[in-house]
């Protein structure tokens, strides 16, 4: 599913990521660890296609519509409600049975009551949970999660644990984290950066 050789990323003269080789089969679970600034986020951005490698080769065997990214930022509109945000992305991703799926996700992640309130009024944990809904909305084949536990509250973290254990083996997962022990049982491949 993912195959990288000599993957390198630099911004002008600044080298952010150097000489990465990677093989991740379909439905594998990759855990990426490394200190801050070791290039974890950059690697994830390369995998999703948001950034292009400066050198080396990268093959990702899924098109844009099959990728889901959970980043540091929630990637949702502040001024829109939770419902409206998901509706927008549902349309853009051409999600089938949009309404039902959105409803289901909002309930599962405890956001049903807050669905008609603007994201600006959400707590950080709630916003990140909404981001998780957005990521899962279109049932992506490749899920990329950048330090997901960092900004999730306890409720969210528990739900994510559950979700990941459900998805492991059924979808391809890439998770960058500071706390690899949490996912130790699920990981099929490990990559340490920096």
């Amino acid at each position, binding site marked *: 599913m993912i195959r990288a050789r000599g993957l390198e990323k630099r911004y002008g003269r600044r080298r952010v990521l150097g000489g990465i080789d990677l093989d991740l089969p379909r439905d594998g679970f990759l855990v990426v660890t490394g200190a801050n600034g070791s290039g974890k986020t950059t690697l994830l951005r390369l995998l999703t296609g*948001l950034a292009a490698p400066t050198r080396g080769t990268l093959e990702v065997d899924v098109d844009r519509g099959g*990728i889901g990214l959970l980043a540091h*930022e929630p*990637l*949702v509109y502040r001024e*829109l409600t939770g419902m409206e945000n998901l509706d927008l992305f549902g349309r853009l991703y051409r999600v089938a049975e949009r309404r039902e799926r959105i409803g289901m996700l909002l309930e599962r992640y405890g956001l049903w009551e807050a669905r008609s309130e603007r*994201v600006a009024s959400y707590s950080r944990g709630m916003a990140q949970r909404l981001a998780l809904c957005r990521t899962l909305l279109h049932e992506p084949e490749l899920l990329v999660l950048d330090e997901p536990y960092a900004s999730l509250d306890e409720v969210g973290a528990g739900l994510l644990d559950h979700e990941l254990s459900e998805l492991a083996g059924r979808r391809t997962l890439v998770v960058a984290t500071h706390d690899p022990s949490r996912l130790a049982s699920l990981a099929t491949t490990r990559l340490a950066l920096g």
Partner: protein
Amino acid sequence: MTYLADVAALARKDLKVELRARDTLPAMLLFVLSTLVIFHFALPADTGDDAAYGLLWVAIVFTALLGLARAWVPEHEHGVLDALVLAPCDRSAIWLGKTLATLAFLLAAQVVALPAFALFFAPLSATALVAVVLVDIGICAVGSLLAAMAAAGRARELLLPLLLLPLAIPLVVGGVGAAVSPEGERYLLLLALYDGVFAVLSWASFEYVVTE
């Protein structure tokens, strides 16, 4: 026709965001009215209507700049732009949605500003009104793209006017000519040419500005 559906969804989103935040449109309105009043004091007593027509276009350009400076702010607030770029829709749809929404705001501001202008200074002919619409289209099309470019860097509020003003010069020429000259149609053609060429160029190159 999913492309148009995407554009519609995106433009609707922009309208909703503005309706809730309510910061850009009132500012644009107030700005353009204040500018018109300042112009009254800036023009010496015996200047003809022509000078006023010239200043109208200055007011429009700067009002548009005000709106454009805020155009991509919602996308940068929580990094949403990444999510849009990642979506399977055509990236140019993002540009088109944004341009249409900004255009709507500019026209809305002008619905108040143009009658005010006619009241304070001089009436506007039909040619001039057509010119206003054409200038709006040109400015929003190019401005959306440039604003996205500028937003990626530092000093973005300073950069946008610098990038946009030279490109706005043909629009101002077209606008003034349409309002003032007896051969106004020629200038409308110039504006139409500008719009056609630069809108297509902006539409096609937006993809390259938001991706790496």
